[in-house]
């Protein structure tokens, strides 16, 4: 009796799953019948693309990928699976990408600016050069900003300039981007700021600013935005040549050039610094991926990043997009890695903490 009931139940489950599978298969067929695809598009249709994110879920890189992936699905016809692989400052995920099968089914976000800096300084651990990657395009370029706490009493960059040595600004680890920014700015403008490094993350830096331990720190515009909106911090300087639309009343580093003792040198340093930021956050495939698939992915990526719906969402969630094509990215990377010798030495010194 018990046995028959069990058999009956198993049969029912089998039947139901068979029905479900049939329905799914039918749906899929109906879908493909709509527009028959040929060539590369047929290859991608219904396949899974693995998108490697070298950082944890919930972070900026992850959010961008999750924002963009539905649109990438829309224009490739493939399913996009986000694969977080944090560790070693992005190195683990990047190594995974370079070692992935060259089928065009694995793509990855890169922390471009940090990769260039590490390469300049000859950091160990990566067995590739950033220029080896084949770029699909750039999601966003870096805009770096100098943030100070409102309670610090400093309101403009000029005031900080005149303040001298007793002013402390914070940074994460030696060689981290907030540290490199601080030291490079010190070199470019001949600032005497005391850079205290060793803070864990941008959020710990914020706490230290609120406590008054430090007056401010460098950081990405994305992470500074919230704190500024809350009205506790103020941005006094932004990197770049022209002012960003969202930061129309904040001077750029280049606007300060004429006020320095040696404008030419300052401009050279800032230009190199800017080429670094231009690399930003690209998406790439491993070298050796078939060219027709690269071409297809590049086009899909371009369409996705120009989709008005995506742009509206990005705007609403405070995640700006500044697209650059794969070809442009290759040039930007070359531009950033081939610096004039004296400028390069200054950068290496900054990264290694020798300045």
């Amino acid at each position: 009796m018990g046995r028959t009931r069990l058999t009956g139940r198993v049969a029912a489950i089998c039947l139901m799953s068979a029905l479900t599978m049939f329905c799914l298969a039918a749906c899929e067929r109906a879908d493909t019948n709509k527009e028959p695809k040929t060539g590369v598009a047929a290859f991608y249709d219904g396949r899974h693309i693995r998108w490697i994110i070298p950082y944890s879920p919930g972070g900026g890189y992850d959010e961008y990928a999750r924002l963009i992936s539905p649109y990438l699905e829309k224009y490739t016809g493939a399913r996009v699976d986000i694969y977080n692989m944090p560790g070693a400052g992005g190195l683990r995920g990047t190594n995974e990408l370079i070692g992935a099968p060259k089928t065009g089914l694995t793509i990855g976000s890169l922390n471009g600016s940090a990769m260039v800096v590490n390469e300049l300084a000859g950091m160990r651990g990566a067995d590739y050069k950033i220029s080896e990657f084949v770029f699909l395009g750039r999601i966003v370029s870096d805009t770096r900003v100098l943030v100070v706490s409102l309670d610090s009493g400093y309101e403009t960059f000029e005031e900080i300039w005149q303040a001298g040595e007793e002013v402390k600004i914070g940074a994460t680890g030696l060689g981290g981007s907030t540290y490199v920014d601080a030291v490079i700015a010190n070199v470019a403008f001949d600032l005497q700021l005391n850079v205290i490094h060793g803070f864990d993350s941008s959020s710990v830096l914020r706490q230290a600013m609120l406590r008054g331990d430090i007056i401010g720190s460098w950081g990405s515009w994305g992470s500074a935005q919230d704190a500024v909106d809350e009205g506790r911090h103020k941005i006094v300087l932004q990197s770049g040549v022209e002012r960003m639309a969202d930061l129309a009343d904040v001077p750029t580093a280049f606007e300060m050039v004429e006020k320095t003792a040696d404008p030419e040198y300052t401009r050279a340093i800032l230009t190199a610094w800017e080429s670094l930021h231009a690399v930003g956050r690209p998406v790439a495939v491993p070298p050796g991926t078939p060219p027709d698939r690269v071409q297809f992915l590049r086009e899909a990526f371009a369409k996705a990043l120009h989709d008005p719906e995506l742009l509206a969402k990005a705007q609403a969630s405070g995640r700006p997009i500044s697209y650059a094509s794969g070809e442009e990215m290759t040039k930007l990377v070359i531009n950033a890695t081939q610096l004039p010798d004296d400028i390069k030495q200054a950068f290496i010194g900054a990264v290694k903490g020798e300045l």
Partner: protein
Amino acid sequence: MGIIEGLSSGFLQAVSLDVFPFLFAGAVFGLLIGVIPGLSGHFAMAMIIPFLYSMEPAPGIAFLLGAHSTVAQGGGLTAIFFSTPGTGQNAATLFDGPPMRDKGLGAMAAGAALTACFLGATFGAVALALLLPGLQRIVLFFGPPEIFVLALLALTFVAVLGKEDIIRSLIAALAGLLLAMIGLDNVTNQERFTFGLIELRDGLELVPVILGLFAVAEMFELWVKGGSLTGTQTKILSAKETQKQIFQGVAEAFKHWWLVVRCSSIGAAMGLIPGLGSAPAAFVAYGHAKQSSKSPEEFGKGNIEGVIGSEAANDAVEGGALASTIAFGVPGSSSMAILLGALFILGQETGPIMLTQHVDVIFVMLFTIIIGNLIGMIGGMFLVNPLSRAVGVRASILVPVLLVIVFTGAFAVQRSLFDIGVALFFGIVGYLMNQLGYSRAALLIGFVLGFTVEKNLYLAVQLSGTDFIFDPIPLTLATITLLFLAYNVWTIIRDRRQAKTTRSEQQE
């Protein structure tokens, strides 16, 4: 929005039909994740993140925090029945949970642990609600100098935990400090003890280390010993008796309400401080329970106070950890960092904006923690019976099955094969330590706090020179640390002298 208004609105939202199903699903999901060794709250939250993109704020928060809040309850069950911490923060439950199981009181320990978790979480949430008006000022008290001294204070609890054999405990704690040094140094950016492996660059991951030290080591021991986890002395209880024991355990937790309050305060206070995390909180609470107990010699041999103390602190941490996240968007733990990312996805802003305009969202979080833990407590009770039966399975079957689960847990944290090796290595280390009488808890405390101590000491000295120790808060805390240490050293000497005199009396 006023606090009262926010409170009622938050409560109504949490129990509304739009939100409660998600809260329930999250809480059950978290409980199951917690039962599986190695999968922690942080993992449960990461799995939920992709769903949030299409959700409204309140259900999204309830789903996410509901899962996070019950993980420790599930983990406590695994700790008691399988001598394997379900999550990192349940490691302290291992001292008295499994010995109770061996006495045939496993279900009672489980009932007490589940209830203590619920009470602790409620305490933590209420504490946070009471702190709300002055929250921002309170969080700002803790900078590098204060965190440094507090971490040092937490380190001295090694003295309480390892009183029986202070030399071996010190060796273990110092070995833990040494292990904490592995990885990229925050300050100089130099690699230390990484042997050129990029897998070691971020240091050893906490979860595989805990799984190795406790779970894998326990499996080795069981494997060597044979038989089953319960040994031969106890028979499997009937479902009815199990039920009776669970309710006895619940009653015990309420009976020790004063202990629950004290341990919850420790948990909530330590949660408040960014970077301390919940694993040390449970150990410190355990140490406190032992210190203040009438029968400290029974600790480690199946004293229910040990289970209640550490589990209460476990979940009280959440209320505290939420505080710094809400007040300034400064996450106190990796789970809170994920929560912060999730809040951003859900379009919520932390800081003054949330404190003044979205108080209801804060209360949705608080009620999620309380209701989630209540669901976890009731749901957990249903798991006690099957789990307590599985314990009787003989080692040759149980060990391979549990090892597969444990290694999967170790892998899942970072999708790293290397971490399986880490778990295996620390399994051997843990087994040897246990055989030779070294305290694994002391090693773990050293490991967890080592980096915090070092990093904050450096920052404190950089910011205000060595004089920072004379600032009011650090000075007070440092004095407490010294007094605490002195008292414990004194009791150790006294006990030793007493032991000596009784021994010589016996010889006469």
